[in-house]
């Protein structure tokens, strides 16, 4: 193999490698509405499981796609994106559903029943689902 050829091979590899690296670097977020839910349950059920045993619930639900159904208890005003809380029967705890879009909660009212899909990120006061999408109003 001539030196010239070796240089060409190295250059080609660099271009392909660079392209793959760029693709990985700029890969888009996995959108929840393109995925099937790993679990389907009511907001109250999800909250109860987390209240009873947080570690077990995290092992089961953390980062999984969860579809929850519940009544909207509160619509929050945020600086970035939007979110609402779902009723769980517990006065202090709910299920917070976060959206990346500012207008995702437009037209919704408290008391309304919704079905939401999102990635579970754990529990503080509320169980939090991030990058949500509304499945059914």
């Amino acid at each position, binding site marked *: 193999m001539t030196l010239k050829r070796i240089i060409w091979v190295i250059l080609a590899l660099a271009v392909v490698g660079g392209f793959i690296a760029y693709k990985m670097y700029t890969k888009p977020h996995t959108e929840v509405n393109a995925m099937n839910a790993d679990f389907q349950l009511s907001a109250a059920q999800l909250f109860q499981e987390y209240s009873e045993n947080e570690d077990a619930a995290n092992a089961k639900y*953390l980062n999984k796609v969860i579809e929850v159904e519940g009544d909207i208890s509160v619509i929050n005003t945020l600086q*970035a*994106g939007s*979110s609402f809380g779902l009723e769980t029967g517990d006065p202090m705890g709910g299920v917070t559903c976060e959206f990346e879009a500012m207008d995702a909660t437009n037209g919704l009212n408290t008391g309304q029943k919704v079905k939401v899909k999102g990635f579970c990120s754990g529990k503080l006061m509320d169980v939090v689902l*991030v990058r949500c999408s509304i499945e059914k109003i």
Partner: protein
Amino acid sequence: MRSFVIFSFLFLSLGQSTFAQKFFSKNAQLSFAAGTPLEKIDAVNKSGTVVLDITTGKIESAVLVNGFQFDRALMQEHFNENYMESAKFPKAMFKGTMDPKSASQLTKDGKYSIKVSGDMTMHGATKPMTTTVNFVVQQGKIKATTAFNVVLDDFNINIPSLVKDKVAKETKVQVDADLQPLK
């Protein structure tokens, strides 16, 4: 006697409704900037919690590490899997106190800057931390904001040498919370 009972009952219930002792938020915004001029690394968490007790001056805040949203999916993956190990350490929290005398001022409308000292726990490590929190009190609601730096080394967060120049050694953290009275 009867009117006294009614009067004191009224007075008590009035007292309770106007002077809430505890305030909280479930949707505090916590953002950080860990970038360098080489790379922008910003992330936002929209569902942080804050609980403030204005009689004792205790304040607690927590955030789910998995809840931070980055522009780039790959960064978010690295943040969770390699740097913060969020499956193992899902929460980051701060527990602190302020002078109860300063905290008791927060019943009156106005602007206050109060020093808060406490412990920050994340990635399995706990370190003391002090910051100044700015409070704006208006009509029974409290808006709290603060900014502080976190040194990654303090919390055993290892950045691989390959990306060392792209990640700041100190991360700037900004917190914004609208606190509601806890009934």
